């Protein structure tokens, strides 16, 4: 045998034990960032090395894996990670949210509601919500220890003073279980309400920054706001051009150099599911139009 042989799901067992212990502590202390000895992975930082390590530590042979990148199952990052685990762990993969038991995500939460048999794994670039307000790790750690989060409210207030509303649109800070302020990773704030009281456990892995944190199922997750400026999820005021959905998060796609644009669901599985169920949008593909005219 000259072929390179990898352990199941790539990581060695000692590494998995270390990550597993970190995950258990992360679940026990919701929203707290547990340091872990992040390994180099066969992909660059920024491609989900943290999420991949968490997935590798929890994945079993009977799991069905779904990977999304900005809601899409079909981008390079999502396909690479899916193939990585299909090859190193031999697990079944899927693009259907309902069929998956482990969903690794980059910057979106699926539109389809998650259930108790699933685990959501987030890829996180900067786990520390206070990092851009206070660069010193020793200080942010103390701020978390003392639950001293006034600075974050000042930041949101400065948004209001400057723009008239809270202009933070993604990585919108949340408070978990009324204790830790946490970065939900750069998901659009549209997704924040889905984190609250979610039936599935949510695990967050930051590879370069070497942190793992978690939200257990059925845990209170509150987006920070003010009484007179309550949190509001943002969504483009349009239906999806392909499936007509009015409740999904939309991507804006520029279609020419004259200012034309279309809005489509960022969650490709949700959009395809709706189209298969017979929903149509204003720009649905030709077969639909032919049928409509014929």
């Amino acid at each position, binding site marked *: 045998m000259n072929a390179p042989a990898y*352990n*199941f799901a790539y990581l060695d*067992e*000692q590494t*998995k*034990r*270390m990550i*597993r*212990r*970190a*995950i*258990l*502590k*992360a*679940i*026990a*202390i*919701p929203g*707290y960032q*547990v*340091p872990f000895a992040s390994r180099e992975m066969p992909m660059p930082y920024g491609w989900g090395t943290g999420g991949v390590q968490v997935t590798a*530590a*929890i*994945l*079993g*042979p009977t799991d069905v894996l779904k990977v999304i990148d900005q809601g899409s199952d079909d981008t390079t990052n999502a396909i690479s990670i899916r193939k990585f685990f299909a090859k190193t762990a031999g697990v079944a993969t899927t693009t259907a949210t309902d069929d998956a038991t482990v969903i690794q995500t980059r910057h979106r939460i699926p539109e389809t509601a998650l259930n108790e048999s699933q685990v959501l794994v987030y890829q996180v670039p900067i786990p520390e919500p206070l990092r851009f307000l206070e660069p010193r790790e020793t200080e942010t*750690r*103390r701020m*978390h*220890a*003392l639950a001293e989060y006034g600075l974050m409210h000042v930041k949101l207030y400065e948004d209001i003073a400057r723009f008239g509303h809270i202009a933070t649109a993604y990585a919108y800070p949340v408070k978990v*279980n009324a*204790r*830790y302020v946490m970065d939900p990773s750069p998901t659009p704030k549209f997704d924040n309400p889905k984190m609250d009281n979610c*039936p599935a*456990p949510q695990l967050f892995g930051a590879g370069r920054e070497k942190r793992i944190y978690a*939200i*257990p*199922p*059925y*845990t*209170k997750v509150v987006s920070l706001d003010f009484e007179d400026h309550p949190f509001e999820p943002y969504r483009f005021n349009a239906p999806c051009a392909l499936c007509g959905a009015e409740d999904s998060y939309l991507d804006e796609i520029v279609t020419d150099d004259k200012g034309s644009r279309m809005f489509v669901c960022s969650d490709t599985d949700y959009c395809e599911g709706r189209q298969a169920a017979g929903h149509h949008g204003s720009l649905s593909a030709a077969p639909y139009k032919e049928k409509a005219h014929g």
Partner: protein
Amino acid sequence: MTTIAELPPGFADKVLSAQSTFRSVMDAMARPGSVQRIVPGAGTPDTMMRGTAAIALTLFDHDTPLWLDSRMAESPDLVKWLKFHTGAPVMQDSSIASFALIGDGAALPPLERFALGTSEYPDRSTTVILQVESLEAGRPFELRGPGIDGATTLQASIKPFDLFERLHLNEALFPRGIDVVLVADDAVVAIPRTTRVVSKGS
């Protein structure tokens, strides 16, 4: 004197057995009060239960100092088994242990003697693995907290009888605290530091 060849075996399949055991423990920790089953079998030295042995093989290694209560520590076979299969160092000082194995709950030392973590690093705390009589029958305990949809009832026969009273220290200390894993044969229930006992019958 048991030789290494006579020690009870570890997992038949190290990789997949550890994965399956971990998922049971993770589910237990994520859903406090729910009873999870540990499927893979391993040898059980002396008084160690199946679930405890599987958890040891899954989570312990040279990075995790252990503390054993006297019931566990007085069995040379058990100590030898842990050393051979996990390589985890057994400490006399419970305040620096990553895990504590409790075979005789009635003699559980005060929880303050274990590592409670610090305010900056609350994760540096002892996980107490407590072998109990039953996680199916016994006194009902009503639990609330993260991971629980409203409230859940755990029926268990646990020593020490005042375990949940003692765990009130988690409320005062949070985010510092002690996470407890209860084991009865192959059944596992986790009580992380966020779980609160609301009421209990007799």
